[in-house]
C-alpha cells in the first residue's frame, strides 16, 4: 500500500502552520494503522532546515519545493507541484488544512486527479467497507467523518475506488503530538524549474496584509466563552477578567462575534475553532448545534444562563441559573478567596 501525505502550509513567519503539524500527527497514526510511511510536502521559500519542524511528528519523507516565487501561496504553482508529486507517488491518503490555503488548493488538485475530497472532517479513521450492491469488499479505507447540513447530521464519507483519499481538516480539530525529538526525516528536493511555467503565475499578488496569529484559544486548558447573552462589548471585559484570573482564554459564539463583542479568531464551533479544554465556561450561550460541535468534548462544562431550559444546559456539568453580570464577579471573588 502507498503512503500517507500531508500538505504543510508555511506561515508568514516562515514556520509550518499549526494545522499542518496537527495533520502530521494524525497522518502518523493513520500511517501506523496502514503500516506505511508518512510523507510531507512543503512548498515555499524555505530551506531543508524546515524539516526540523516536522520531524518530531514522525514524518519519514519531506518533499521540499524551495523557490522565492513560491511564497506567498498562489494556487496554480502550488497545485502544479503537488499534482506532480502525487502523480509520481500515488498517495493512499492526502490531508490538507481546511484553511484559506487548503480549501483553495485541495479541490483544484482533487479535480485534476479525479479523486474524492471531503471538506472539514472532524474525525478520520481507518475501516473496512462492503458495497451493498456488488458485495465488493474494501479493506482499510479512510473514513472521513464530518458534520453536514449545518451541523444537524454527522456523515461518514468514503472513497472506495479513487486515490488519493483526500480530506481537509480545520485547525484545532486534531491534536498536535510529538512522538520523538530525534525522528529522522529524509528530505527530497523537488526540481521546481522543471514544473513551473510562466502561465502558472497568471494571478498577480498586488498587495497583502496578513496579521500574525494573535490568539490561539485551542491551546488553552480553560476557556471562558461568551455569547449573545453577554449583552455588550463592555460586559465582555468581565469574561477577560475571569479568564485572566483562571489563566485561561476568552472564546465566543458566532452571535457574539457577529454582534461585534469580540474578534472572529475566538469563535468556537462549526465555523470557528474546535476546542477541548479541561474547563469550558459558557456565559450567555444558548448552545446551538453549530456551537456545541466545537466544544462538546470539553472535560467539564459550566453554563451560566438566565434561561433554565437553554440547550447548552443539557451538556453542562454545572448549570448556574443567573445573569452573567452578576455571576462572573462572584466567581472571580470566590476563586481568589479559595485559591489562597
Amino acid at each position, binding site marked *: 500500500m502507498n503512503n500517507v501525505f500531508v500538505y504543510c502550509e508555511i506561515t508568514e513567519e516562515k514556520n509550518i502552520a499549526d494545522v499542518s503539524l496537527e495533520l502530521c500527527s494524525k497522518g502518523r497514526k493513520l500511517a501506523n494503522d496502514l503500516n506505511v510511511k508518512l510523507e510531507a510536502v512543503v512548498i515555499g521559500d524555505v530551506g531543508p532546515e524546515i524539516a526540523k519542524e516536522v520531524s518530531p511528528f514522525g514524518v519519514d519523507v519531506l518533499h521540499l519545493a524551495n523557490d522565492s516565487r513560491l511564497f506567498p501561496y498562489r494556487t496554480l504553482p502550488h497545485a502544479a507541484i503537488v499534482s506532480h508529486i502525487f502523480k509520481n507517488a500515488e498517495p493512499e491518503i492526502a490531508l490538507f488544512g481546511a484553511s484559506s490555503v487548503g480549501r483553495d488548493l485541495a*479541490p483544484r488538485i482533487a479535480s485534476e486527479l479525479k479523486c474524492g475530497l471531503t471538506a472539514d472532517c472532524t474525525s478520520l479513521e481507518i475501516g473496512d467497507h462492503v458495497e451493498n450492491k456488488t458485495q465488493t469488499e474494501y479493506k482499510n479505507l479512510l473514513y472521513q467523518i464530518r458534520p453536514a447540513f449545518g451541523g444537524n447530521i454527522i*456523515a461518514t464519507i468514503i472513497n472506495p475506488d479513487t486515490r488519493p483519499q483526500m480530506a481537509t481538516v480545520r485547525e484545532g480539530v486534531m491534536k498536535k503530538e510529538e512522538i520523538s525529538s530525534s525522528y529522522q526525516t529524509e528530505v527530497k528536493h523537488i526540481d521546481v524549474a522543471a514544473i513551473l511555467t510562466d502561465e502558472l503565475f497568471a494571478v498577480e499578488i498586488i498587495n497583502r496584509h496578513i496579521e500574525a496569529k494573535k490568539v490561539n484559544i485551542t491551546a488553552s486548558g480553560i476557556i471562558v466563552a461568551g455569547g449573545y447573552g453577554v449583552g455588550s462589548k463592555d460586559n465582555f471585559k468581565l469574561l477577560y477578567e475571569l479568564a485572566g484570573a*483562571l489563566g485561561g482564554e476568552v472564546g465566543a459564539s458566532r452571535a457574539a462575534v457577529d454582534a461585534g463583542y469580540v474578534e472572529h479568531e475566538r469563535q468556537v464551533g462549526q465555523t470557528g475553532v474546535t476546542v477541548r479544554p479541561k474547563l469550558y465556561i459558557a456565559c450567555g450561550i444558548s448552545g446551538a448545534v453549530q456551537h456545541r460541535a466545537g466544544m462538546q468534548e470539553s472535560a467539564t462544562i459550566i453554563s451560566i444562563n438566565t434561561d433554565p431550559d437553554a440547550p447548552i444546559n443539557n451538556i453542562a456539568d454545572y448549570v448556574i441559573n443567573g445573569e452573567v453580570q452578576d455571576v462572573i464577579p462572584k466567581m472571580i471573588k470566590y476563586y481568589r478567596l479559595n485559591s489562597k
Partner: protein
Amino acid sequence: MSFRIVVLAKQVPDTRNVGKDAMKADGTVNRGALPAIYNPEDLHALEFALRVKDRIDDAEIIILTMGPPRAAEIIRESMFRGADRGYLITDRRFAGSDTLATSYAISMAVKYLGDVDLVVAGRQAIDGDTAQVGPQVAEKLNFPQITYAEEMEAVDANSITVKRRLERGIEIVKSSFPCVVTVHASAPPCRFRDAKRLMKYKKARTITELQEESNEYSDVYEKRPYLRIEELSVDDIQADTQYLGLSGSPTKVKKIENVVFKAKESLRMEAKDQDINDLMKGLIDTHIIG
C-alpha cells in the same frame, strides 16, 4: 455581447430549518422536505457580477443552476435582480452528483455557452459547506481562480483586481480573463429586486414549467423570447455519463447519524454567593482550576 459573465447559483435546502425527514435512506438529502432558498453566498456572487457588468460596456450575465426543475426559481430571482438570462442544468442522470461530478457538469455547460470571460460562484453552499465546486470548475476549464473575493477593486475588459478575505487578513490580486472568482459572505450583499424587472420577467419559465402549468401561453417564447429559461440536459452539454451522478462521484456516503447530544447529569444552582463559593472551591480541590 462582447463580455460574458456566468454566475453559478445553487438552490439549497435551508439548513437552518432542518426537520426530521430531511435525509433519505441512501444518505442523500431529501430536498423535498425542506424549504429551498437561494444559496446565501451566491447572492453575493450575483452582486459581484452585477458590479462588473456596471463597469463594462456590453456585458451580459448568464445564470447557471444545476438542480431539479424547481431550481428554475433561482434563475427567475436572478433576473429580477439584474441577470440577463439563465440556464437550468437538469437531467435525472445528474442526480447524486458529488462536487467532482457537479463541477464536471457545470464546466461542460460553460463550454456549451462558448466564450466566457468570467465565472463567478459563491464561496460555498450551505448544504455541504464544501467550497469545492468553484475551484473544481476552474480546474476543469483550465482557468485561474481567485477565491474568497470580498471586493472588486478594479475591472476593465482585460483584467480584474480583487480583494480577497483570508483567515488573518486580506490580499489584493489581479488576473486577466478568463478566470473564476468565488465570492465570500463579507462581500457586498445583493441589490434588491427591481420592480420593472419583476414585471418583465415574472412569467419567465422553463419548458417543463410551461408544460406543467399547461396554460394557454405556449406561444409566449415566440412573442417574448426573453421569458425563456433554457434547460440543458446531459446530451445538450455533451457530457459523458460515466463522470456524472452517483457513478461519477468518487465520494460515497457510508453512514449518516443524527446529532444527538447525550444529556449529562448536571448540577444546578442559583447565583447565590454560597453556591458559587462551593463551586469554585470544588473546582480548585479537583485541580480543574488553580
